[in-house]
């Protein structure tokens, strides 16, 4: 069942690494309306960076393809981030989520999913070989007293 969003925005961009910073800033800008703490904003930026980098490095290792990012605010002050590519896909998602596992060579650490899981409340990964990968992450932001 899909929860109705309080507010949502979608963004599509080509899988160029220069867009990693843009995706982070956009997510942080959208989340700002939830009155997050600085730590929460940094957590969101870090998780987005990992998911978008995965799409760029692993979704399209030898080409440039489309990446979409959807940001939704759900009831209960929950932020949902969806990063999707239509690239190569992950043959074994459980293996890919293990710490230190990487197929990305020495410039990757294999810690991307570990960090997403550590910084967000829930991370769901759906993938099909040669169809693409979708990562959905949710984080409940702490309620803050409004003056």
């Amino acid at each position, binding site marked *: 069942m899909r929860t109705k969003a309080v507010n949502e925005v979608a963004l599509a961009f080509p899988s160029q*690494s*220069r867009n*990693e*910073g843009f995706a*982070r800033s956009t997510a942080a800008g959208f989340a700002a309306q939830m009155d997050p703490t600085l*730590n929460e904003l*940094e*957590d969101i*930026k*870090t998780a987005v*960076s*990992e998911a978008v*980098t995965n799409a*760029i*490095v692993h979704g399209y290792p030898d080409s440039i393809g489309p990446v979409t990012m959807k940001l939704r605010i759900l009831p209960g002050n929950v932020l949902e981030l969806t990063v999707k590519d239509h690239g190569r896909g992950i043959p074994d998602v459980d293996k890919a989520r293990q*710490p230190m596992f990487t197929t990305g060579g*020495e*410039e*990757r*650490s294999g*810690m*991307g999913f*570990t*960090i997403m899981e*550590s*910084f967000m409340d829930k991370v769901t990964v759906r993938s099909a070989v040669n169809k693409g990968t979708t990562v959905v992450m949710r984080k409940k932001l702490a309620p803050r007293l409004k003056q």
Partner: protein
Amino acid sequence: MEIRTKSADRNLLLELSGELDHHGARSALRELEEALDAALPRKLVLDLSGITFMDSSGIALILRAQQKMQLLDGSLLVRGVPPQARRVLDAAGISRFVTIKSLSAN
């Protein structure tokens, strides 16, 4: 992403500033390797106090530096680590392998 290199008496200091993500880490890895090959240091210090954002790409850079220093039979210190970068390193358990000092501890 910018790197300033200082080398003296087989001590090598790399001061990193800006955003250390996958986009920035590519050139940073290359500069690290070049600086290490030129200096062949006994001690390498990575100063992250100018880093405004870091993700797991920074972990790959630090682990690469650690590997290289082991080959050179030298030591690595990562210092000046800002809070966000520290949380990334802690989530990955990197302090088990590498000596790390946070920004406030310096």
